């Protein structure tokens, strides 16, 4: 079983390599690097651009055959590894290939890969002209038919919205405060994403014109009529607060809840905090009381900032350790460590509030480097006229 499985996988890979080799000689513009010793079509895998140049290289039946072979190969691979063929994911495939073909090579493009043919062979359009040589699409000779047809569609929609508005004005039902499309929380498609959608390469100028036209459509008061069309070209932005890593609460032997804030950097100062939910509000830094360690009021205020913001001033006991930097940076590092430790005690909404107050972002400001030809980061040498 294993032997036959190996042969089938090998045959799949060999066939793949064979086809790729053929295409290497035929279409050199597809594979930029000439890799004659390929186990799989790795070069095409890493291509970011689309096969917009030229007619299709792989026919429909070829791709279908590749998909079938890939699926069969996947099942054989699952059997070889002793796992369930039904629930064999791409991650499992990658692991199995890395196990069966251990590669000490550094170049990612030289390592053996096994991926679904849709990811391997770039998306391309079917042949654009009929048997008599006449193209199907009326904009074929512009060279960018999908892009121009999209622009025409958008403009037609804008005209339709204007017509709708005129009709409403005629019936005296026109109001300025019609329902607007909500644009907060989403962004326009990027140029790469648009290229992927249209299966065509477009220039920066084209992309700018497209965005301009969409903005023009959105400037009409009744644009909510075409909301679906607009939303197709927008992507949702992810909610930032979901990116915070909240560690679960830990309990020590007396049942008191505690949590640690990991060492946080602020301008070469690192601090760690152990927050204990005991209710006394005592703070000790590197063994000494915080009043003695931070004689400056501003630093102590920074320590209190997250606690005061959440209204839990007297609740926590803190044992902090800090090193490096000056007194301000140590206070800043401790503030961030305290905020992170507090996250495990708070709810989702409170985490988002803390983030919006600027407590959870590590401060990226560092000392600016000295530049050559100047005395410092900004200070220039004394200017001498001669």
């Amino acid at each position, binding site marked *: 079983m294993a032997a036959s499985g190996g042969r089938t996988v090998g045959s799949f890979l060999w066939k793949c390599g064979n086809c790729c080799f053929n295409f290497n000689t035929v279409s050199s513009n597809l594979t930029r690097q000439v890799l004659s010793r390929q186990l799989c079509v790795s070069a095409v895998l890493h291509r970011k651009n689309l096969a917009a140049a030229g007619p299709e290289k792989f026919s429909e039946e070829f791709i279908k055959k590749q998909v079938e072979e890939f699926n069969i190969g996947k099942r054989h691979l699952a059997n070889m590894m002793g796992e369930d063929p039904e629930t064999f994911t791409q991650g499992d495939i990658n692991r199995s290939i890395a196990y069966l073909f251990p590669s000490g090579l550094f170049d990612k493009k030289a390592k053996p890969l096994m991926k679904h043919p849709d990811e391997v062979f770039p998306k391309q359009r079917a042949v654009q002209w009929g048997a008599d040589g006449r193209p199907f699409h009326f904009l074929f000779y512009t060279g960018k038919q999908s892009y121009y047809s999209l622009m025409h569609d958008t403009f037609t929609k804008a005209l339709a919205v204007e017509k709708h508005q005129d009709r409403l004005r005629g019936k005296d039902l026109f109001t300025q405060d019609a329902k607007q499309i*909500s644009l*907060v*929380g989403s*962004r326009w498609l*990027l140029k*790469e*994403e648009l290229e992927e959608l249209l299966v065509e390469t477009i220039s920066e100028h084209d992309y700018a014109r497209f965005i301009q036209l969409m903005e023009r459509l959105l400037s009409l008061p009744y644009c909510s009529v075409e909301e679906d069309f607009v939303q197709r070209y927008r*992507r949702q*932005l*992810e*909610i*930032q*607060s979901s990116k915070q890593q909240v560690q679960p609460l830990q309990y020590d032997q007396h049942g008191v809840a505690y949590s640690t804030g990991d060492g946080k950097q602020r301008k070469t100062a690192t601090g760690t905090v152990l927050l204990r939910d005991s209710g006394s509000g005592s703070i000790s830094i590197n063994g000494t009381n915080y009043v003695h360690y931070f004689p*400056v*009021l*501003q630093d102590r*205020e*920074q320590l*209190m*900032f997250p606690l*005061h*913001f959440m*209204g839990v001033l007297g609740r926590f006991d803190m044992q902090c350790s800090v090193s490096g930097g000056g007194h*301000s940076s140590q*206070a*800043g590092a401790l503030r*961030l460590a305290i905020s992170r430790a507090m996250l495990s005690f708070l709810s989702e909404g409170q985490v*988002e*509030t803390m*983030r*919006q*107050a*600027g*407590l959870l*972002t*590590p*401060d*990226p*400001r*560092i000392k600016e480097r000295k530049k050559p030809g100047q005395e410092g980061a900004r200070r220039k040498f004394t200017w001498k006229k001669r």
Partner: protein
Amino acid sequence: MAASLTGLLKPWTPRVLLVRWSRYNPYYLEPEPRKEVYHIPETELTPEQKEERELKSVRPIKAATNSVTSSVFNDPVLSKFVNMMMKDGDKIIAKGIITQTLENMKRKQVEKYHKAPEGKKAEIECNPYAIFHQALENCKPVIGLASIQKGGKFYQVPIPLTDNRRRFLAMKWMITECRDNKHRRTLMYEKLSQELLAAFSKEGNVVKRKHELHKMAESNRAYAHYRWW
């Protein structure tokens, strides 16, 4: 999310180093450290505030600076004044001077309060923060002058000032006045409290300087059309 957008969330140095740049990407928004803002219920928000909240939930936020807290004693105007008074990065001394100034002002006002007759007691302002803000307001110029070159000569043209510029000028005049025109034995906080109390009652050198600027602008009214913005 495309790969290019994750690059916006790291501390960066811009490709072309301009004179004013920051380690934050322009994608980051300013933080809001005050507590009360977050306790307003949903129903009392205007549509713009709702939109702003939604925008804040998808954008990364900058870290709050060291001089900013959520406490009631945190005053952005006062922090700006402390920074302007600071020399060589010594904030401890500058903050100490300001604290002593406020205490001094309070002492003087309380003394005046106790000495005043019953009818006048209500008019005397004892809150040093209120005095400071009112004094600064009284020192802010309404109109400023800009040096514009036309036909080989430089003319002083009256121009409108932004809020930030006005506040900066008021603070700058206050500090330079206190540094230059004082007896060498008077301490800074003493002189500053005198000036602030004088500005509060619209007397003193700083208010005089503001009036002079206004007069100059009034006298140069003829050149106002030289301004093109």
